[in-house]
């Protein structure tokens, strides 16, 4: 009976979403306060229903209820409890339910933190979010029901894919989804502003903290995924330009453009149209990402077509969201005139360059990701786009973004003098080029130019941001600190990517117990290979002693596991992590006798990639907590924002 309760809660949530969107949007249009006042309680009820539905599915996993198809396909009695819970979002149906739940959480958050906003605006926002919920809940109930039962319940489940049995994968999908779905708030704010015919920029100010927080979740979610791939896939890579990764990276790029563009729109009354388009674009990419990853379309266009209801539903849903919002935009755009004027040398221009470049980068990735799907769908053959394409377009396009960043933070809004900017940034420019060049020469290696450019660009970001922080030390706001922190994080990530990509060393070697190999000044000795039982797998463990200058510095363990339920092999890498280098060992395959193939990696500065993401996340949290975003309630329930704070920069 309990799974049916989940089913019932989902249907109830759908009903709430339908009533919510009708009453709040119509109520706002007809200025009917009674109807609009229903929005908040309905949204909260919908949230509650989704919590119940989700809890029911979690309960089914915990109690090993294999009469539920989804549980039987993705769990197993031997699976440890924490993975039985994370298995809830381990496959298609459950991850869509998580998506719907997170949308409910964001709606609940909007009802909590929008007390100071005009009633009709809040009603419209919740109404639009309700419409999105309708789409998702219908998709769940009609094509991907997680509560579906099997007539003859199997005694044992099929197990969770062993790759997903890992701490990183417990938190990676929820983080990513909080990011994806969070952009629905910015999207709904933009749609609500257009529905209400709002031509001012107040919506941009209200949307900013929401957008920044979503971006923080997405940033951390992507970083977690990359870190997981690094230690779990067993061959030391942290980014593969895989379509699944691209699906999360595209909304991040567009989202980064959006937070910058929102700042310009709010402060200067410029780029109104562009910002609204970006808000639509970011959320559409989030939807596209969810579907690309979860519909099976990436495994094969045929898998997509093999379940036509899902495929058709997805296309219709995307079409309605993108088409509907663009149609609304086309109707409302003529009224959206940006009043702000700015000259060529101004912060406004730098922000425009930044967001245009980020969108161009996003489009090149979109091309590389969708092209193989389109070609295959048209029956023109099968092909894939290699990682070198993405590197070849991504890196050169990001260099001007980083350079514009350093100039942009020193430039005044509206109008500035080039000579003034250059006087402030000259030292930073010279220092970063000289130091970057020297470092590249010191690292006597093949990739001198790439290292020099990467390190120079990162130093340029560090120095300019630190100087600007220092120059403003008397009037620092959280917003400004957050911006600098996130920019410095970008620099840290650039250092990590540049040095680890160009100066890593790797050796693949056939070894037996007692054999030694030298990699980057370290000697690795395969000490022992033994069999170790696990809860739901059997492991072969290699113990590797690492020596430097004849002294042992660490002992690493790498395992090759065979999971019982599906007979899947898995590699657990042995990693000695450090701020300036990682030492990484993983077992390859068993060869004749007692020999194994092993992978050894020396990866300098690889941790900086994820460390930078943490800085970006922290910066986002600081910026979103700036007091200028705090809404104040007045008698008329209108908005007054702290005017001192409004003078600061974000």
């Amino acid at each position: 009976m309990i799974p049916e309760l989940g089913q019932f809660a989902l249907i109830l949530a759908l009903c709430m979403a339908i009533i919510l969107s009708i009453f709040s949007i119509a109520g706002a249009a007809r200025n009917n306060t009674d109807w609009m006042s229903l929005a908040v309680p309905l949204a909260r009820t919908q949230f509650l229903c989704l919590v119940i539905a989700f809890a029911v599915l979690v309960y089914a996993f915990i109690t090993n209820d294999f009469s539920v198809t989804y549980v039987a396909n993705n769990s197993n009695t031997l699976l440890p409890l924490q993975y039985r819970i994370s298995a809830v979002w381990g496959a298609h149906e459950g991850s869509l339910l998580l998506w719907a739940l997170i949308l409910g959480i964001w709606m609940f958050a909007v009802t909590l933190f929008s007390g100071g906003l005009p009633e009709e605006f809040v009603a419209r926002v919740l109404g639009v979010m309700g419409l999105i919920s309708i789409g998702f809940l219908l998709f769940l109930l009609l094509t991907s029901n997680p509560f579906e039962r099997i007539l003859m319940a199997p005694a044992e489940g099929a197990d969770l894919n062993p790759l997903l049995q890992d701490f990183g994968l417990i938190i990676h999908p929820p983080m990513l989804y909080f990011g994806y779905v969070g952009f629905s708030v910015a999207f709904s704010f933009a749609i609500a502003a257009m529905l209400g015919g709002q031509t001012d920029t107040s919506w941009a100010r209200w949307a900013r903290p929401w957008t920044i927080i979503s971006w923080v979740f997405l940033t951390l979610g992507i970083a977690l995924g990359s870190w997981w791939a690094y230690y779990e896939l067993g061959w030391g890579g942290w980014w593969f330009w895989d379509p699944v990764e691209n699906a999360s990276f595209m909304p991040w790029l567009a989202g980064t453009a959006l937070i910058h563009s929102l700042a310009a729109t709010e402060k200067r009354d410029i780029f109104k149209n562009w910002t609204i388009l970006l808000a639509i674009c970011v959320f559409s990419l989030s939807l596209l990402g969810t579907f690309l990853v979860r519909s099976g379309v990436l495994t094969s266009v045929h898998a997509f077509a093999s379940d036509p209801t899902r495929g058709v539903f997805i296309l219709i849903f995307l079409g309605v969201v993108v088409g509907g919002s663009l149609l609304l935009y086309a109707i409302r755009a003529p009224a959206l005139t940006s009043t702000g004027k700015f000259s060529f040398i101004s912060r406004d221009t730098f922000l425009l360059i930044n967001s245009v470049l980020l969108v161009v980068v996003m489009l090149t990735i979109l091309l590389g990701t969708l092209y193989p799907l389109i070609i295959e769908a048209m029956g023109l053959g099968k092909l894939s786009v290699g990682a070198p394409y993405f590197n070849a377009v991504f890196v050169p396009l990001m260099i001007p973004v980083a350079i514009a960043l350093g100039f942009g933070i020193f430039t005044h809004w509206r109008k500035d003098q080039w000579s003034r900017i250059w006087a402030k940034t000259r030292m930073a420019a010279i220092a970063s080029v000289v130091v970057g060049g020297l470092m590249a020469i010191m690292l006597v290696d093949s990739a001198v130019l790439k290292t020099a450019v990467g390190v120079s660009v990162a130093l340029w970001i560090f120095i300019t941001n630190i100087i600007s922080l220092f120059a403003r030390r008397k009037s620092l706001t959280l917003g400004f600190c957050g911006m600098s922190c996130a920019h410095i994080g970008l620099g840290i990530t650039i250092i990590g990517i540049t040095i680890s990509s160009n100066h890593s060393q790797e050796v693949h070697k056939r070894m037996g117990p007692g054999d030694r190999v030298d990699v980057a000044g370290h000697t690795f000795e395969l000490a022992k290979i033994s069999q170790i039982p696990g809860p739901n797998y059997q492991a072969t463990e290699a113990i590797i002693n690492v020596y430097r200058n004849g002294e042992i510095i660490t002992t690493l363990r790498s395992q090759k596991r065979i999971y019982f339920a599906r007979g899947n092999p898995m590699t657990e890498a042995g990693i000695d992590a450090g701020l300036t280098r990682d030492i990484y060992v993983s077992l390859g395959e068993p060869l004749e006798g007692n020999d194994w193939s092993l992978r050894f990696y020396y990866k300098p500065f690889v941790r900086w990639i994820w460390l930078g993401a943490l800085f970006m996340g922290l910066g986002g949290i600081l910026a979103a907590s700036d007091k200028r975003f705090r809404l104040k309630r007045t008698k008329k329930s209108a908005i007054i924002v702290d005017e001192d704070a409004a003078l600061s920069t974000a």
Partner: protein
Amino acid sequence: MNPRRRKLLITATFIVVGVTAATLLGLKAFQENLLYFYSPSQIAAGEAPQTRSFRAGGLVVEGSVERDPESLIVQFVLTDTVENITVTYDGILPDLFREGQGIVANGNLQADGKFKAFEVLAKHDENYMPPEVADALTKAGVDMSSGNGHSQK
């Protein structure tokens, strides 16, 4: 032409030249990195490119895996049940590489007719069949109605 117009013209020219150059470079990189898929039958028929990298895929023939006793060099045969192609690879094969399993390899044709792989891919699921391989087998006349793949990640 007044100075303001001239400035505008120069700026516009820069933008147009920059965008064109970037687009051309991007499309060139794109063209160079497209990896087309060829089945053993297509390779046997001489359809696969001789100089450019491509993807080859099929089932690993049972008993065809030969390892060099000293190094990591390995050789195996891929089949679509009609034609075969011998693949050589110097490196560590993925966890799910097994005889009888469907795999995809990226690499080049060598003068001796063997396919030299620089990357061997086997998806992380024992039921999974790379879509290209499934398609190639269907074309070669194998019934592929059983066992569809699970999505990853």
